[in-house]
């Protein structure tokens, strides 16, 4: 159970998006804005956005078990993570750039700032990239990340998660978020996850899907992403 001060400043629907100030997550305390956000008109600057990514992405980028370039394979439980990216009316959003980063199976990031004594895996960078296809589908092959400790409070551990960046089409619909795994016992203790209003938290949790699981190869997890609406569908022209 988390007791915390929850700020009133939220960008977007306050039933969906976390507030900037959520003091159980201590890094919000000196970084959350305190002035009301300014209500501005939506113009071309917000309804357009970066979208020309094709040359930046190769097929190999979506396989985190082998994209370290060592010729070796990452150690851990192999998983397929896939889902659809749609607008809020269910229309698929193709050609979105999905970038992910994650800890290895032991809960350790390659990042130089991650210094806890979890082992590094020489064959795992924890970085992947792909574009959604015409049906708005993305798909990664990776290993299931481990939980890792952080210094937010005493004996604090982040639940296993994969960071997702979803970029394309409309500047206003930019999304950076984290995907979690169903039944993780750490979710209830995590202030970052719990900063999301309770009714929306389940939308950050992937579901195990046996139809995605491939025999004698990898377990399947499904997680869909829904982005804000109107401008995204006007794009059809």
């Amino acid at each position, binding site marked *: 159970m988390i007791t915390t001060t929850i700020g009133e400043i*939220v960008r*977007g*629907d306050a039933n*969906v*998006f*976390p507030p*900037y100030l959520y003091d159980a997550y201590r*890094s*919000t*305390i*000196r*970084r*959350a*804005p*305190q*002035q009301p*956000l*300014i*209500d*501005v*008109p939506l*113009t*071309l*600057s917000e309804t*357009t*956005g*970066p*979208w020309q990514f094709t040359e930046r992405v190769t097929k190999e980028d979506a396989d985190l078990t082998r994209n370290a370039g060592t010729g070796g394979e990452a150690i851990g439980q192999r998983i397929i993570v896939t889902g659809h990216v749609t607008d*809020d*009316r*269910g229309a698929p959003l193709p050609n979105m750039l999905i*970038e*992910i*980063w994650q800890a290895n199976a032991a809960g350790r990031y*390659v*990042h130089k700032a*991650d210094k806890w004594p979890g082992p590094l895996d020489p064959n795992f*960078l*924890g970085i992947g*990239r792909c574009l959604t296809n015409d049906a708005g589908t993305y798909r990664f092959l990776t290993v299931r990340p481990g939980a890792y400790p952080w210094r937010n409070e005493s004996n604090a551990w982040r639940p296993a998660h994969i*960071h997702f*960046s979803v970029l394309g089409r409309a*500047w*206003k619909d*930019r999304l*950076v*978020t*984290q995907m979690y795994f169903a039944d993780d016992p750490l979710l209830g203790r995590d202030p*970052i996850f719990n900063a999301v209003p309770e009714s*929306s938290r389940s*939308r*950050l949790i992937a579901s195990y899907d046996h139809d995605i699981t491939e025999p004698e190869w990898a377990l399947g997890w499904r997680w869909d992403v*829904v*982005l804000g*609406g*109107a*401008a995204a569908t*006007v*794009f059809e*022209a």
Partner: protein
Amino acid sequence: MSREPSVRALTPSQTVGPFFHDCLLDASAPCATLVGDDAPGQRIAVHGYVLDGDGAAVPDAVLELWQADDRGVYHHPLDARWSGRSDFSGFGRVGTDGDGRFEFTSVLPGPVPCDGGHHAPHISIAIFARGLLNHLFTRMYFPDEPSNDTDATLLRVPPLRRQTLIARAMPQSDERAARAYRFDIVLQGRDETAFFAIA
């Protein structure tokens, strides 16, 4: 304009955390030069600092930048003036260093037309960092632009806070850039940058 009722609930945001660099700022990903060497327009060099509510450097922020070309055209299918040629991206990403400093180069964007006029030239900025559970949106405008006085977005900002969105002209120090600017981003406090409710 009426909208159909929404049928799917949106995906909530989460912080970018401290470990994004190798992914989002990877050399093969979008970077700090928004335009190619041959893009037309006046070269600009921008630098600034991201600061927290104590005035301390934010050494682990990443900024995303989005702008029109030198004629004010977004290279995007929704901009009717775009020719369909894709020799210009207008998108960039920069991280802050240990001092909270960032820098990027681009071309001066042109004025973007809107109902009955033009927007003042500007660069859209999204700010991500550990401790930001959702990113922040703002814009950087340019000093000595008469059109700042009639810009529909800038006019929504309370007058005392407008200057937080206007870059300062700096002595030119980069020989490749005709103009240099400084633009600081203050996340919290008395000099807090004006952030937008865009969603």
